[in-house]
């Protein structure tokens, strides 16, 4: 066997390897294309079926506008609460120590594991007409916020926790020994490091809120102009056969999701840049 022979075998092997990798890349692109991209493109196509005028009419329909406004406002409020509460909970889970902390840590993921319709039912049982706490917020705007707070709870906590865990405590001790108050140390030392993680958790939570359906359905009553969110409005349009109008409002949600994903990749790049 000559050296050239070996070389040829090697080339043959690498050629078959690259064929294999082309094949697997083909599988990935086909799967995503058929399952995700073509259906989403169909939504965009459908939204323009009645012309651009039809699209604008569908999106500026008063009921659609009210639903979109409620969705975005509620999501903003919920994200703001999550940023504060999530950061505090993450801090408690990392820096504090008490009995049962491991259990508390593991129930944080419950909103991801619990079906959204069950979440809606549980919140209705506790904060609805037969509330054992005497707190009935069902079918009000507050109930929209409550449902969204439940489903988005883990995002900020799970984004902040690992960063807080790896945070070097020398800087904090230095700041404290130089006379900085607890709040000053937090604001000047800890917060800047946590910001990319908080923002990324907030963006994910916002994206989730904007599209949320299951958890709001039973709790909010879905009254047009009052408690109807965008995804419930789209659902209603689909049920009454108004596919193009449903698609138009969906496109608004799709654009927001895409913008958030893009922003998120920028935040992640900023975060990694921050590390190095």
């Amino acid at each position, binding site marked *: 066997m000559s050296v050239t022979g070996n070389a040829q075998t090697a080339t043959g092997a690498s050629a078959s390897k690259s064929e294999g990798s082309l094949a697997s890349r083909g599988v990935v692109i086909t799967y995503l294309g058929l399952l995700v991209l073509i259906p989403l493109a169909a939504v965009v196509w459908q939204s323009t079926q009645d012309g651009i005028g039809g699209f604008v009419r569908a999106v500026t329909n008063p009921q659609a506008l009210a639903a979109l406004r409620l969705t975005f406002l509620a999501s903003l409020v919920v994200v703001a609460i999550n940023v504060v509460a999530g950061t505090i909970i993450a801090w408690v889970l990392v820096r504090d120590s008490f009995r049962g902390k491991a259990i508390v840590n593991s129930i944080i993921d419950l909103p991801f594991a619990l079906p959204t319709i069950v979440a809606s039912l549980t919140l209705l049982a506790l904060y609805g007409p037969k509330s054992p706490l005497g707190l009935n917020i069902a079918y009000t705007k507050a109930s929209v916020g409550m449902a969204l707070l439940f489903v988005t709870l883990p995002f900020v906590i799970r984004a902040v926790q690992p960063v807080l865990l790896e945070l070097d405590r020398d800087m904090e001790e230095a700041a404290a020994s130089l006379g900085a108050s607890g709040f000053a140390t937090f604001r000047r030392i800890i917060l800047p490091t946590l910001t990319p993680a908080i923002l990324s958790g907030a963006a994910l939570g916002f994206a989730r809120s904007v599209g949320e359906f299951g958890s709001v359905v039973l709790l909010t009553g879905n009254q047009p102009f009052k408690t109807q969110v965008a995804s419930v409005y789209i659902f209603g349009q689909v049920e009454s056969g108004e596919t193009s109008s449903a698609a138009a409002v969906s496109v608004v949600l799709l654009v927001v*999701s895409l913008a958030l994903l893009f922003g998120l990749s920028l935040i992640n790049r900023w975060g990694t840049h921050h590390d190095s």
Partner: protein
Amino acid sequence: MTARIAFRVFALGYLALLLVFPVCIIFARAFGEGLGAVWQAVIDPEALHALWMTLLIASIAVAANTVFGIICATVLVRHDFRGKSVLNAILDLPLAISPVVVGLSLLIIYGRTSPIGVWLAEMGVRIIFSTPGMILATIFISLPFVVREVVPVMREIGTEQEQAASTLGASAFQTFWMVTLPAIRPGVAYGIVLTMARAIGEFGAVSVVSGQISGITETMTIYVSSSFERFDLVGCYSAAVVLALIAIGTLLLTNLTGPKEEY
């Protein structure tokens, strides 16, 4: 020190009011009618059929997304090509899109008004208002989990062992089956648990494409909603308790199979 206690009280109080109390109360509501009533509600034929549909659809979605997830992770970790960041962004789409929009997209493609839907109807294949559509919707919304869990594990294990295996004459398939797969198994297992949980809990996308035909295209989550609407509260709470138990089981499983982190 007082700040520490205040934060602890705030964190625990917030979690109790938002998470723990609500979940406890559905158990109280369901079992308030007595164990017998819950059992009767669970073995109701319509509820059992819904449970069967949920398990069938979730299993198919898990199988499809596991195979896809492993192939996709290999492509992301081991191959270098243009547009990798685009592929990464597409993978995040299912988590950022409203489930109702997912259902609508399938309805537009495969519904009776689309050319594909008409052609399929002539072939006698029905996707919308039927199980295949519900499976497609579930695959869509649970797509990224296996990929996302396998990618870091695969990156960690490197390629040395695989190269050693292929130098020793193992075929590509043997290398994958006997070297790569055992090494990435923890990531795959965790991904499967997450996919399963998401698939079982899906409601929005599935209800759009299912047409919610009671007793036929009903999953457990749709059954919760439909029994609530017809004021069958025992049936509704019982089904919700079954789903909540599955969710709690999932949490326990993720604690066992998930990446170990000490907080």
